């Protein structure tokens, strides 16, 4: 007998299993760059930034009192569009998303206290960690464009979920295409 199956069954000594869900504070955290003070300072520094570009978005989306504008969730407003899709192995923000990216950039320009997270995602193919880096590169590409169009460094954090949070669960190109994306999330939403 050269091959064996070891059916390894155990009277589950899982009594001792504890789940550690405690949150210990991070010992090392950079000061939150997106704090209201930082945002205000950045806004002041930007000085003469105008809102003229907001016409691209159709609606200026200017928020009052530091809160987020309802325009961000208005399905009729381009600001409610929050996902940018990418081609395979690509980090290029396609032209069709330009208006959308610009609208959010102008919103950030008009609302300096507002902060966003750009969350990069990939399809399921390849190494988990390398996909984290790929998703990051996509998020960074969107950030780059937003900075050119009016957002500031301090307002935009880029992070990546790699292939860990697919939107579509299939294993074909139509699912993969939905998973190669960057999501725009407003802090405090």
């Amino acid at each position, binding site marked *: *007998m*050269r*091959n*064996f*199956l*070891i*059916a*390894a*069954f*155990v009277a*589950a*000594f*899982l009594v*001792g*299993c*504890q*789940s*550690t*869900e*405690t949150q*210990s*504070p*991070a*010992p*090392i*955290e*950079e000061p939150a*760059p997106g704090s209201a003070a930082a945002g205000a300072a950045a806004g002041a520094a930007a000085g003469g930034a105008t809102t003229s570009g907001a016409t691209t978005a159709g609606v200026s989306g200017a928020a009052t009192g530091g809160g987020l504008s309802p325009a961000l969730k208005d399905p009729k407003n381009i600001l409610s569009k929050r996902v940018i899709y990418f081609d395979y192995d690509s980090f290029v923000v396609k032209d069709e998303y330009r208006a959308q990216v610009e609208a959010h950039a102008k919103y950030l320009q008009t609302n300096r206290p507002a902060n966003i*997270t750009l*969350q990069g995602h990939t399809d399921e*193919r*390849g*190494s*988990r*960690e*390398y996909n*984290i*880096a*790929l998703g*990051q*590169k996509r998020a*960074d590409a969107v950030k780059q464009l937003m900075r050119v169009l009016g957002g500031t460094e301090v307002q935009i*954090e*880029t*992070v*990546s*979920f*790699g292939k*860990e*949070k697919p939107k579509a669960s299939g*294993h074909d190109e139509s699912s993969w295409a939905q998973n190669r994306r960057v999501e725009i*999330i407003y802090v405090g939403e």
Partner: protein
Amino acid sequence: MPRLLRLARFLLPLVALALLAVAPARAQLDIDIIGGSGTLTPIAIVPFENENNWPLGITGIVGADLVRSGLFKLVDYAGVVPRPARAEDLRADDWRSRGADAVVVGSMRAQGEGRVEVRFALVDAVKMKQLAAMTYVVTPAQFRATAHKIADAIYEALTGDVGVFSTRIAYIAKQGPRYQLYVAEADGYNAQVVVTSNEPLLSPAWSPDGTRIAYVSLENKKPVVYVQSLETGRRQALANFRGSNSAPAWAPDSRRLAVTLTKDGGSQLFLINADGSGVQRLLASPGIDTEANFTPDGKSVLFTSDRGGTPQIYRLSLGSNAVERMTFEGGYNVSARATPDGKGFVFVRRDGGRFQLAIQDFATRQVQVLTSGPLDESPSVSPNSKLILYAAEQGGRGILAAVSSDGRVKQRLVAPATDVREPAWGPLPR
């Protein structure tokens, strides 16, 4: 049974596949040996004297360990009367006729206060020469650990390599929306939950001293690297900077880690002390640098970079800061893990659409493909460099699998109704 058909494609004859209907609790792993070495060493393991005085024996576990290595087959001891318990009880004729190269005998004796003396001897059945012997005084709660130690001693005496039956493995199990980091014995038993989260967990990495596990959690809506003590269960965020924090890799001294941070732009390699202090940049590149992995001498770091246009494996020499490209074949070579013997590294390559494991020798640069894919990833090499544990997919579900570093022995580790991924082989116990 489609499962069998899948196997039959690339496996040696399958003698028995007996998946029992009783589902073990939680993400307990069941291990199938699905391919073996060309020649198996025949070994007889005689039940120890008085062993059936205790409900959980020892020799059954020793035998299972040895068979699981893919290097041994068990020889039937039935008919040898009286049953031997000491090396001097053995008669060469009994074992020659049964074809055994080696025989294991032993005894167990209650010593009061719940302690048990366990003795064993390993004997060359042809020369009738004792190869190894040991006495342990343990409690029944330590029987499994003792059995693994005996199996390690036998494995080392017969193969010349260190046994890894006493080691532990870590892995991530996903059940529905729940992710759990588990630690289990190398044979899949005694799976214990280390941490539970409703967001993805990935990249577990054992500290080389075996006391802590670093991992990446997305629970804060971004990748953050944590280090958790296995003794106290306490954890701390090791790297929680602006941007993404991922790919922890311990230095051999357990005092520092390499991590991938994006805080200064791009995915770049940094060193950080195990308490989260002393962050320093390791390298600067215009593209992606990630998946660091220290060589066992601590003098260099293997990593994945797209600096040349496609993801390839590079080696950074920490003394000179020289960077050398290691892989050249194919457009996707990632996830390098140095083998503990210092001779080379295991990595994942893409061949067409298939992701496969391969091993490359530092000296000869020769590459050997070890698995056929299609979605093999996250390799982790055993401390004796003989086996590689990795994540694979079977029937749309994540499973763990193992392959020997010569590609001959193959195993699958399956947990019922659970996606299992991200295996990490723990160090040798101290």
